[in-house]
């Protein structure tokens, strides 16, 4: 059960922090239509986060209260375990998102590349989850996949536009790759809770990894961007609660109101 809860919180945290970063663009995009598209993606992520948090909350509510509080790793005792208490009353070191998703937005190149890497990863992971023995998890994955397909397509098109656009856009893409690549290894450095809850073994993880890399390189080729390989080393820790210095600031801003009035209704 612990693995299941950890894995759901991991999925929820990934979605919420992705949504948070994407939403920072709202009103600041380079093109009105793209501002709308990116806000829509932010909305999809927040929606996915809610589904995962709600599922986790439902499971936690069935457990003895003490055990549930410990499993969710709250740092204060919430009035009840809900999607909101899970999002707003856990500290950075209880958050289990990938380091990649909490990195600053940077410019448009860095933002769309992050979405491109992440949504391709999500796509192949969620295809796996379709046959998960937790039918609720499988159902959320199925629902999310429709949105993710759009994220994959949208971000892939932008990778091509920027990679094969102007000298400047290409330069910015190369810089973005340089900055983000050390963080993608963490996708496939699976924790025990992921293996258990997502029903993965080392072979299937390796397959996901290869599939992901091939997909990325396929688009990169079309975008005239250099082929990537996995190095031996990469940044990790987020899935176990050891984050970058950025997450603390995200949460300070995001959680401010519920922290101030922990039992209020909004």
């Amino acid at each position, binding site marked *: 059960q612990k693995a299941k809860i950890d894995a759901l919180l991991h999925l929820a945290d990934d979605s919420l922090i992705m949504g948070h970063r994407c939403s920072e663009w709202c009103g600041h995009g*380079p093109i009105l239509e793209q501002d709308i598209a990116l806000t829509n993606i932010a909305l999809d992520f927040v*929606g996915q*986060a*809610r589904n995962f948090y709600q599922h986790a909350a439902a499971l936690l509510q069935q457990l003895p209260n003490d055990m549930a509080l410990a499993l969710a790793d709250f740092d204060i005792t919430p009035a009840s375990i809900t999607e909101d208490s899970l999002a707003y009353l856990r500290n950075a070191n209880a958050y289990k998102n990938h380091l990649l998703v909490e990195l600053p937005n940077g410019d448009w190149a860095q933002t769309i590349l992050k979405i491109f890497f992440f949504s391709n990863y999500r796509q192949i992971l969620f295809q796996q989850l379709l046959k998960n023995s937790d039918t609720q998890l499988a159902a959320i994955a199925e629902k999310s996949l429709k949105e993710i397909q759009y994220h994959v397509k949208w971000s892939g098109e932008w990778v091509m536009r*920027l990679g094969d656009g*102007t000298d400047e856009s290409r330069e910015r893409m190369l810089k973005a790759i340089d900055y983000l690549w050390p963080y993608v290894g963490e996708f496939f450095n699976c924790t025990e809770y992921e293996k258990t809850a997502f029903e993965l073994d080392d072979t299937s993880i390796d397959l996901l990894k290869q599939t992901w890399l091939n997909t990325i390189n396929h688009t990169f080729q079309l975008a005239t961007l250099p082929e990537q390989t996995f190095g031996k080393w990469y940044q990790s820790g987020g899935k176990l609660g050891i984050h970058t210095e950025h997450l603390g600031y995200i949460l300070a801003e995001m959680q401010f109101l519920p922290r101030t009035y922990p039992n209020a209704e*909004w």
Partner: protein
Amino acid sequence: MDANKLAEQFQQKIDADIKIEPQDWMPDEYRKTLIRQISQHAHSEIVGMLPEGNWITRAPSLRRKAILLAKVQDEAGHGLYLYSAAETLGITRDEMYYQLHSGKAKYSSIFNYPTLTWADMGAIGWLVDGAAIMNQVPLSRCSYGPYARAMVRICKEESFHQRQGFEILLTLSKGNAAQRKMCQDAINRWWWPSLMMFGPTDNDSPHTAQSMKWKIKRFTNDELRQKFVDVCAEQVKFLGMTLPDKDLKWNEERKHYDFGPINWEEFWNVVKGNGPCNKERLATRVQAWEDGAWVREAALAYEEKKSARKYA
């Protein structure tokens, strides 16, 4: 056909409630007035994303966050319809942006006030969107077809937003002492600027007569403002809050609420650019536009390469 004749036929169509369409003849002044009004309205939607966007990352629940995101996204969408409607009159979106960024075009002054607490999301929905709807519903019967049709769609979404805003305030009004205080404080700060949204009093609004004749405007500023006051004075009772106007009271004779004098000095000051956030709002838009230049160039270069390849 001579110009007088055309102008006569034009006015006849309007009088007969026949919509003017982009390819139809129209007087220059009608075209100019519409371009100014529609683009100003479009800019208001785009600049209006900023004060609410300011609370997306700090929304106090996931549900509220999603609703707010969707709302701000809708505003971007409204901007898009309106820019398109204006384009049918022979101006490009880039020209309109240029007018906004250079300070030549205006946008609704209400967005030059800061959003200081979460309750402002409620007050903006209830009062600002409420005032906007009051202004806009008549516009969905406006004489220019593309504008009228955009307005139909926009008004439908706006009234949804208004209900959501009221619900935020209602929740706060039933909350703890700090939440109730936050609620009243937001109403206090947004009430008068909302009344100013209807524009100067009819005496100071010289173009009203012509606009009404053209059916670009269907009620005077003061008529709409009175209607808004009458509605809000009733709704605020549901919140158990008050409107910050000691002169507000029901006038049995007029069958309307009387209300206190509006601070027109503040109104003109904000219009002139001295509101609390004028500089920042405009600077934010200009920055977004300038930071996006390389992205737009890249997208263009890519399209050109792609079509070159296609026909190669």
